[in-house]
């Protein structure tokens, strides 16, 4: 039962061949087996959203997927969001609007917002608020996160 399986996690365009037990969550595999510690773990039961990553274009909770289920899929994490030194508009907006304080929930919020906006660029303000209610932040009181995401959404629509 503790036998390990060889899989490849393709994270931000780079293949990570790893061997994991089937029970290893995608979140743990990204962090511990692939060393990409920008993805954070806040609750491990799918409520807080700190571990949100984009798998094959879908924003998902990486604590609720097993790593073996992501074998061969395209995974995007916070480390791959900027284009070299050029910040993604969402990252820039979080900085400009003070959408973060301790920064622990931030990668999850960024991946959530980017993941949803890439799928639904024309999403309305109310629906966007519903989306942002997916994740928990304990520092900011959310108002600056909402401002940041709305500003970045505009930027992203401009392309």
């Amino acid at each position, binding site marked *: 039962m503790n036998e390990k399986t060889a899989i490849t996690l393709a994270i931000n365009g780079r293949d990570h061949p790893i061997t994991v*037990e089937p*029970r*290893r969550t995608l979140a*743990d595999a990204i*962090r*511990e087996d692939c060393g*990409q*510690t*920008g*993805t*954070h*773990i*806040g*609750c*491990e*039961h799918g*409520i*807080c959203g*700190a571990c949100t990553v984009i798998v094959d274009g879908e924003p998902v909770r990486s604590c609720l997927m097993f790593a073996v289920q992501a074998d061969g899929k395209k995974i995007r*994490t*916070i*480390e791959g*969001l*900027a284009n070299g030194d050029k*910040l993604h508009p969402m*990252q820039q907006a*979080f*900085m*400009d609007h*003070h959408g*973060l*304080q*301790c*920064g*622990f*929930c*931030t*990668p999850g919020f*960024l991946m959530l917002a980017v993941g949803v906006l890439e799928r639904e660029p024309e999403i309305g303000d109310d629906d966007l*608020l*519903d989306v*942002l*209610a*997916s*994740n*928990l*932040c*304990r*520092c*900011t*009181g*959310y*108002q*600056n*996160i*909402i401002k940041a995401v709305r500003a970045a959404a505009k930027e992203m629509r401009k392309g």
Partner: protein
Amino acid sequence: MTWVGRAIRRLEDPALITGQGRFTADLPAVHWVRFVRSPVAAGKLMKISAPKGAMVIAAAELKGVKKITPMLHKFNYKPVGQPVLAESMVRFTGELIAAVAAASEEEAEDIADQIELSIDETTPVTDAHAALKAGAPQVHAEAPGNVILEGKVKTPDFDAVWKNAHKIVKVEARSRRQNATPMEARSGHAVYDPSNGRVTLTCTTQMPHLTRTAICDVLGLPESDLRVIAPDVGGGFGQKMSLASEYVVLVWLARKLKSSVAWTEDRRENLIAGFHSRDQHITLEGAFDTNAKLLALKADIISNIGAYSCFPTTCGVEPLMAMAEMPGPYDVQQYACLARGVVTNTCTMAPYRGVSRPVITFTLERLMDKAARAFAIDPIDIRRRNLVDKFPYKSAMGLEYDDASYKETLEMAVKAVDVPAFRKRQKEARAKGRHLGIGFATFSERTGYGSPAFAARGMEITPGWETVIVSVDPSGFVEARIGSSPHGQGLRTTLAQIIADEIGITPEMIKVVHGDTDRAPYGWGTFASRSLVISGGATLIAAQKVRAKLIKIASHMLEAAPDDIVLADGSAKVAGTDRTIPIARLAREAYTQTHRFKGEIEPGLTETGHYDPPGTFSNACHVAIVEVDVETGHVKVEKFVVAEDAGRIINPMIADGQVHGGIAQGIGNALFEEIIYDENGGILTATLADYLPPTAHEIPPIELHHIETPSVNSITKAKGLGEGGCIGAPAAVISAINDALSTFGVEIDEMPATPQRIRAALRNAEKTA
């Protein structure tokens, strides 16, 4: 133009938004630790049966390890020691019993699952009132009647004033148990260095130096053998102040295994055993004269402090803070108070943002609202009649309030919400069966207080002062090493702004170093809305010394009088001339050309500042507008308005962020968050689907207005503001709920005001109507 006062972008952000933050749980380790915790609330620990071959550490192995025994020298405090791992007794669900070390977290948990505990269960007591009853189970033999401390105060003329008062108004307030819930739960990583025998403990602490002191005390180590690092820390809110026994075990294990060991707390552990707070009963009575002027206050404060006394603040932190600051922003000179800390079979209480003040503000503001009703006057009016408006003001407890704007912020907030327009809207909504309410909370927030404040509490450890070392290195760049330990507050940016103004460079050239006992001077960390005031003050003092030295060097090199030297834009200039020299050059000379100064200037460019201020009071008025769904009990906070005065604002963007975050937690505390024990002392709210921090949906737009009354008790003129949002919001929200429900004859004096509680009150009112 100064850097102070500007909303510059945070220097912390580039790493955090790109996934380059460095948090404790990011570190790899050879051994992973899983703790075995008590599944029951009370009992005698008989036997621990572990699977063969597993590495399991229990109390018996920790020979020579002392108990954690925080001390208070006043208030009839009963010192109660907490074993690092439970010895003969277990006293709350989640208490540490053993540690398992294995090659992975999964494996450690597999082993922990197989460990069998034999515990002779005894009847627990979880409620403070129940614990005070005769015949209640005794949690500690050292604390008979379960009272671990008792504070009493009565002003000399109290009885006479009380007797002659026109009207007595009373509130019995209840605040339920809460958990600070930082998004990063606690974690620790200890690694042994065989070359020198030292251990480096990286952990999620708000106070690295005191963590080192505490662990070395308990393990009997010289402090030089332990380095404590607080890397990026994912929020603390007080929970990460108190010493986690888990860290003691990690350091012990790293030394035993001569290797690295790590523990990452899971969310369930955090909710069960990661410290709780706010579990209080307060009965508060106010004596008023015929003009609704408050003459005297009488408080009975019962604080459920859980099973042990937390280190370093001790369990006095809640009851004694409540006792000292109960009168709040109101002018009342007669005061009597009994404040008791009660031990129970529940998770240990520790500071949580606001410490008691969210509860006492909610209680006092309920009292004022009830008094307004008793006098048939407007709730705003009764506040106008009673707020302190002459400074400095000495409170009945002897606290000195520095210049503030209690009345001005009230008027500012009242104007901003347009009360008459709201009352009209409220009336129209009622006609349609919708119930809107408005609630006001005015409060003072004692911040930035130094060691005398802690000494007054009788604390063995008085965490007051701060030290900052500012160095300009030979490259001309600046490093400020600080004893505070920020974890989201933006101190790397705000302190850089303070230094930049003093020595004429940009904040980007300044690195603030913190959270490492090898790199930072001894200090107390970040808590109690203190860091910008105290560390900021020490920073200013150190930076002023550096400035003076730079001017001295410049005056030598430019052959000008020191008074004529101006530091700005990276250069020293002789005023009124075009003679300048880059600051980087001055710095280089300070190290490499000291012979030029002929012994008149000491080498190097490093200065130290210490600061231990008396404390300053921020203030604010919070206004909540809510809609109560009377059928479901649901409360929607529609709008939140704040008029805030925290003295001089160093960075408005960061200051506003602190207020926003505090308000969100305050709304959570007011409406959603509650740790619930069952009758056996088990916790029913051990997941984030049961313990409910608010989401973006539950937090309304927040409108902020500012007054800046410079503080005379803070050399930067800044006051602290980290906790204020959380202090005022519960009172404002619950006041608004009561306003909305005023036509039903219902009063809610409990937080959180959950929908079930609101419905129960309404149902009762319907029955009796």
